[in-house]
């Protein structure tokens, strides 16, 4: 099944989501962002480019990802639960949708190298993968703390031919890796594309990443209609930077579905953040009283970002989507329950979305509702961490 969203993909866009978004970067990068925007708009109007993008995602990435109706959880919860299975994609999450798109743009711009930031390593592995496939050089910036916590993903990136730079500045975590990638980009923008991993950063990134990720929601919407004659009552996804969520939500914004983004309590940029301008965008960020960015704290490395993509800030402000938070214990419980009830070990990130559903089925979410939930990635990467927390491993 292929979903056609060519027309929409090629729509021009000014980079503002209500009061959010924009392009707040050093002047040295302004030209590159303008070029990227042009090339992106041009590429997405080019049927050959779009066909290549879709074909790689199909024959290499494993798309379309199926919709799994969860019979057991549905029975237990009293709602009809449908999972969009991004965990079945090559490299194990939705990240591949975005990196394939950006790697193709990199080649289209005549650049020979990609750089990327990564927290837990998922986006780093995905970028290294796309680079290997398309013959690009690749450097991944990763906070030193994260390179230690996620040594195995560092190895995977190297295995895929990428160079991994341990970032030693600031809190030595994801936000600093983003800073460092931006700095590096300033110095090598001529031959290098910065492949941002979520729907965040300066325009055109939030928009571009959304467009590369909207295949999630476009497919899901069509599949639900096709296979189940259904338009879901609820659409739920976890929100870190917000790419899997916005990629899901976009297809449903104009429908009657209720839309819920789920943030970790310790990194709830929408629930607890305030307006700010950081990492190239105006959005919501968790900050101290003077506007210094704070670190996020979540059990899930992929949601450990103190900001959020600008479109989510806008959807929240406009009321079109609501954003909930769950705590680490709820997430751990959801991780285990989904594994046991459905035989699907979720990544800790989508376990946030599940945790919300488990808590609210029969509460905020009325019994009998149909729910589409994006299973953004698989839990293999998290098993060791959870095993340690639960005392199964030392």
């Amino acid at each position, binding site marked *: 099944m292929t979903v056609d969203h060519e027309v929409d993909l090629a729509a021009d866009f000014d980079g503002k989501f209500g009061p959010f978004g924009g392009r707040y970067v*050093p*002047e*040295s990068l302004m030209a590159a962002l303008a070029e990227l925007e042009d090339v992106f708009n041009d590429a997405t109007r080019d049927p050959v480019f779009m066909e290549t993008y879709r074909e790689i995602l199909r024959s290499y990435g494993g798309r379309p990802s199926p919709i799994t109706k969860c019979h057991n959880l549905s029975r237990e919860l009293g709602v009809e639960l449908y999972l969009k299975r991004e965990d079945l994609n090559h490299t194990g999450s939705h990240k591949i949708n975005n990196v394939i798109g950006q790697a193709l743009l990199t080649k289209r711009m005549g650049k020979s190298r990609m750089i990327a930031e990564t927290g837990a390593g998922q986006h780093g592995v995905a970028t290294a993968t796309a680079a290997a496939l398309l013959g690009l050089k690749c450097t991944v910036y990763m906070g030193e703390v994260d390179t230690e916590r996620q040594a195995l993903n560092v190895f995977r990136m190297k295995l895929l031919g990428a160079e991994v730079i341990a970032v030693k500045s600031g809190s030595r975590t994801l936000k*600093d890796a983003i800073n460092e990638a931006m700095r590096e980009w300033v*110095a*090598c923008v001529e031959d290098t594309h910065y492949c941002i991993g979520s729907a965040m950063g300066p325009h055109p990134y939030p928009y571009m990443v959304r467009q590369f990720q909207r295949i999630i929601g476009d497919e899901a919407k069509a599949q639900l209609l096709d296979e189940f004659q259904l338009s879901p009552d609820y659409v739920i996804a976890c929100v870190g930077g917000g790419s899997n969520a916005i990629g899901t939500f976009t297809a449903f914004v104009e429908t009657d579905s209720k839309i819920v983004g789920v943030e970790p309590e310790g990194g709830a940029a929408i629930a607890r953040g305030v307006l700010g301008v950081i990492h190239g965008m*105006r959005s919501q960020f968790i900050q101290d009283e003077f506007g210094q960015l704070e670190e996020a704290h979540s059990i899930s490395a992929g949601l450990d970002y103190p900001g959020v993509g600008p479109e989510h800030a806008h959807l929240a402000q406009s009321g079109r989507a609501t954003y909930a938070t769950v705590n680490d214990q709820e997430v751990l419980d959801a991780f285990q329950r989904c594994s046991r009830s459905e035989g699907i070990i979720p990544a800790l990130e989508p376990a946030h979305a599940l945790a919300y559903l488990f808590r609210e089925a029969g509460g905020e979410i009325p019994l009998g509702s149909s729910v589409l939930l994006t299973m953004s990635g698989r839990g293999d990467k998290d098993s060791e961490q959870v095993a340690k927390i639960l005392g199964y491993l030392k």
Partner: protein
Amino acid sequence: MESYGSLETHLRKARSNGRKILVPYVTAGYSPEWIDTLHHVAAAGADAIEVGIPFSDPIMDGPVIQAASTLALNRGVTPLSLLNELSSESFDVPLVVMTYCNLLFHAGIERFGGWLSEAKIGGTIFPDLPLEESEEWSSFAATKDIDNVMLVSPVTSEERAKIIADRSRGFVYGIGLMGVTGVRSTLEESASQIAVRLKAVTDRPVLIGIGISNKDQARTVGSIADGVIVGSALVKLLLDGGGPQGAFDFISSLREGLDEIDG
């Protein structure tokens, strides 16, 4: 269009006196002696001083200035505490605050502008506030006699460079190379090129920063531009324990280099 504040007036006067402009950069609060350092730097012949207010995520800064910022933040300083310290000092040369725009937006333009005024700040540099988003602050700043300095990079188009130079106040900041702040042993050709390009499109003082670390480099660039900004080299010396006196000596030598240029 040709309105500007006292910072630019000061620099224009220097230029018309045939003097090459020297703007050292010091990270505010890197050590308790930072105020003392500013005085020494002023005494050594600076025409203005760029005062960096530490930000948690400084995407335009290299390792040296990041380290200084981290030192300062770990000492518990805040934008307000630093500006408060400055407000009780007085300097013969204008101070220009360099920081990132989130600190501005977080406090709010009026409040932040008020703090700057109290501290008698003559100009601001926000490396992540691009032309397109700068209008609101520039206008407000002008009402407080604060010149908002804007930056032009080696890859900025001719047309855009002209617009930026027009909108900039105080001086035009020419970025000497594609990269972030940091010490470089050799001068990039791009530093002289951007100087030439900017001089061709604006009458405003043109200062070149980023990648200028020693007397020779300052002299080379200064012979084309109206002056130079020296940041990481000075901060490195301070982090290495050079102290206010070391800063004085280093800035004096740069002054000497610039003064050797045949106006």
